[in-house]
């Protein structure tokens, strides 16, 4: 069975390359059907492997089995989290492809399959990154993922904002990747190994942590946290996610950002968790601090957006912060909760982006102010948008609610309040949009000075849609149903918990199921979200941007140089946060 693991990368690659080779003569339908079959087939394979991932599998590519515990080959991991992320990425790619069925008006001349091929490459890259058990191999797939994502983000080259967002995305992420590679080189110098667990053993054999371990930790984490859009590495995300084509946004916000978080979890757990790595207290300090900052900045910025896709992008940042906090406390329960949260969030966020895409193609705008009351006729979309908002708030029995309640219990104390507030604010912002755009409630809000409006966008289809195609409404509906199923399906939580704990957490087992406090907190967050949205719609002046929010918004300057400077500050911050234990050790 384990021999099949590399197929999760190979099949999508072949599926992207063969149509490109057969190329120019293939009709569009044939290319799109190939895309479905390949993407779905890979998803099915990932699912099959996932169901057989107890005990965890490993595969040495090229048959270079270790001799005396050492190998010259590359190891691919087939444990629960790795295959789970691969499955999630595959299924979401399938959803995005279904959503974009007959969608873009004009594929490049002679390259009908380019979009499908890029999506398949993206899928292969995400699977490869999720399965990577070798640090340099992880870097390669990380770069593949990035390169495809830049191209997909800038796909609509007619749009000034799209190409600008894609370039910012490209520069910041590439710099992060190079930082990561510097870190890998430092680790290789110390241990002479590239496999993650081999590096971990090498560090432990060398003794306590020193400056080199700290620097390599900071550099590798920089790369991963840039992808995970952690404050202060997050600036590229709203610029890129707000402008990418909708099906791409579904993938970027739904899986790619989460893969950064997953990578940080994996790398810490296998490389730096031993006695030669970064002490647990330091990691907790670093991740929880950055996580809280990220969640707070994301939530505040989310609330003050009028560009709907940008608003959703900031809510992704806010939730990434929550993921980091949950992983940062380093308990098995925290890991379980976040795993469930990520799955639920992916489905909900993708569904919300899909609904925003419907607005874009129907009205040529994703601006909350300009669309005020105009989408009353889109009842189904409106209902789904509202349900998505409730899912974001963590209303039981959504999967997000289950994950959040487990993570809240693991984090405990004041962090619980953070979880409730952040999910309530982001959900409240989405509910506010629902109320204004789909119901036309409240007065039309006034424009602020320093912001990105969502008007004047080009629809992604050939001209404005008169009626919304069935695929564009079915996909979000299915995704929302999936988010519900994650929370409702009996035993699913425990299944996830078991496979996560088998892969990490040092043998400790926890279970994940609904508890009374969790349900109550979920209900509280939802209630708070509804109240916030109601206040915002009926009394706009009460919740208008206070003066302290203005500098925060001004930081998001759209200038790539600023973002690079922030990236450097971020590495310093990360180093400072993790420093005490290294000095002590």
């Amino acid at each position, binding site marked *: 069975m384990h021999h099949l693991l590399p197929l999760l990368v*190979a099949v999508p690659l072949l599926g992207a390359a063969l149509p490109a080779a057969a190329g120019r003569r293939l009709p569009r339908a044939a290319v799109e059907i190939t895309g479905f079959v390949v993407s779905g087939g890979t998803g099915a394979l990932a699912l099959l492997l996932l169901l057989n991932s107890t005990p965890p599998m490993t595969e040495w590519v090229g048959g270079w089995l270790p001799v005396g515990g050492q190998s010259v080959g590359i190891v691919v991991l087939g444990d629960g989290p790795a295959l789970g992320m691969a499955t999630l990425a595959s299924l979401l790619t399938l959803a995005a492809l279904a959503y974009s069925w007959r969608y873009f008006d004009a594929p490049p001349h002679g*390259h009908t399959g380019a979009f499908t091929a890029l999506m398949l490459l993206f899928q292969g890259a995400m699977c490869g990154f999720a399965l990577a058990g070798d640090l340099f191999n992880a870097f390669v797939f990380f770069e593949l993922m990035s390169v495809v994502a830049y191209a997909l983000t800038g796909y609509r080259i007619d749009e000034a904002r799209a190409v600008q967002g894609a370039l910012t995305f490209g520069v910041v992420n590439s710099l992060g990747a190079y930082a990561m590679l510097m870190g890998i080189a430092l680790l290789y*110098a110390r241990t002479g190994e590239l496999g993650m667990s081999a590096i971990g053993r090498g560090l432990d054999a060398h003794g306590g942590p020193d400056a080199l371990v700290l620097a390599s930790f*900071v550099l590798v984490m920089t790369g991963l946290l840039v992808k995970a859009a952690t404050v202060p590495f997050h600036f590229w995300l709203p610029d890129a996610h707000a402008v990418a084509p909708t099906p791409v946004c579904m993938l970027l916000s739904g899986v790619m950002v989460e893969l950064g978080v997953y990578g940080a979890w994996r790398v810490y757990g296998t490389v730096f968790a031993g006695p030669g790595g970064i002490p647990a207290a330091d990691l907790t300090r670093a991740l929880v601090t950055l996580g809280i900052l990220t969640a707070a900045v994301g939530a505040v910025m989310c609330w003050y957006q009028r560009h709907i896709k940008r608003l959703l992008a900031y809510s992704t940042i806010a939730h990434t912060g929550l993921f980091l906090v949950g992983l940062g406390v380093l308990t098995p329960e925290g890991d379980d909760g976040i795993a469930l949260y990520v799955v639920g969030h992916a489905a909900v966020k993708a569904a919300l982006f899909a609904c925003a895409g419907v607005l874009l193609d129907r009205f040529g705008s994703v601006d909350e102010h300009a669309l005020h009351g105009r989408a009353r006729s889109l009842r189904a979309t409106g209902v789904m948008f509202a349900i998505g908002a409730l899912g974001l708030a963590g209303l039981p029995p959504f999967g997000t609610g289950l994950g959040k309640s487990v993570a809240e219990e693991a984090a405990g104390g004041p962090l619980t309040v953070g979880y409730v507030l952040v999910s309530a604010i982001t959900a409240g912002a989405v509910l506010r949009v629902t109320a204004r755009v789909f119901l036309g409630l409240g007065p039309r809000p006034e424009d602020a000075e320093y912001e990105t409006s969502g008007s004047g966008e080009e629809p992604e289809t050939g001209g404005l849609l008169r009626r919304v195609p069935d695929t564009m409404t079915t996909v979000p509906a299915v995704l929302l149903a999936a988010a519900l199923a994650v929370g409702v399906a009996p035993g699913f939580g425990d299944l996830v918990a078991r496979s996560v704990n088998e892969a990490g957490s040092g043998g400790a087992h926890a279970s994940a199921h609904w508890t009374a406090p969790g349900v109550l907190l979920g209900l509280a967050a939802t209630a708070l979200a509804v109240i916030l949205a109601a206040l915002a719609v009926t009394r706009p002046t009460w919740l208008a941007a206070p003066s302290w929010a203005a500098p925060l918004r001004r930081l998001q300057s759209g200038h790539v140089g600023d973002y690079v400077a922030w990236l450097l500050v971020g590495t310093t911050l990360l180093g400072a946060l993790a420093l005490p234990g290294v000095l002590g050790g």
Partner: protein
Amino acid sequence: MNRLRLWLLAVGGTGLAALLVAACLDLPRFGGRSHPYGDRAVHASLRRHIANTIASVNFDQRAYDTLGEMSILFAAVLGCVVLLRQTRDEHRAPPEPAEVARPVRRYALLVLPVALVTGLYVIAHGQLSPGGGFQGGVVAATALHLLYLGADYGALERVRPLGVYETTDALAVSSYVVLGLAGLLAGTAFLANTLLPYGTFNTLSSGGTVPLLNAAVGMEVAGAATVLLAHFLDQAVEIEDATEEEPGK
């Protein structure tokens, strides 16, 4: 210049610099003897009769990385095709034929075959001497563009049917994957180099599947580099939008 950015840069740069310098002082000294993975790789390469250990690492021991690398190149080509496509508000204006001084023309046309042969030589000797599919592929692709230098863009376009190069590129990626799958079907593992005999050390056919994978990479790179350059040349020389006028005014 923005004051805030300079401050951030100063703080972040100082912090990162301190971190990196501290790490450098903890690194094993330059030129040290301990390279466990490297030593294992050399032994593994010799066991498989591959003279160039780097080729062995690239196309055998860590062939999976090279698969990712090829995909990156393939993705970049697809990406550039998408990003540099001709939009509705642009048109093509064939450039005027350029006057090229005769010595330059002669030089370019003489060097062209030499460069092509060198490219092929570098690809073919990949598993023996320094070089390989990647290096040779770029040289071969560059060689083609000597036509632009020696004649003009029109001449280059005539010998450069882009579709063929794009197909080559995609076919090469596919064949790399298919070679990998063959290992899987033979019952060993993905990208396992166990299908073919390892041959005599230091000959062109040594190393099992390594020469095949190397050739696939060479084809891919040559195709990809040509297509990439073609799209940039198109943009720089031919494609114009409404705001542009004829060149040479």
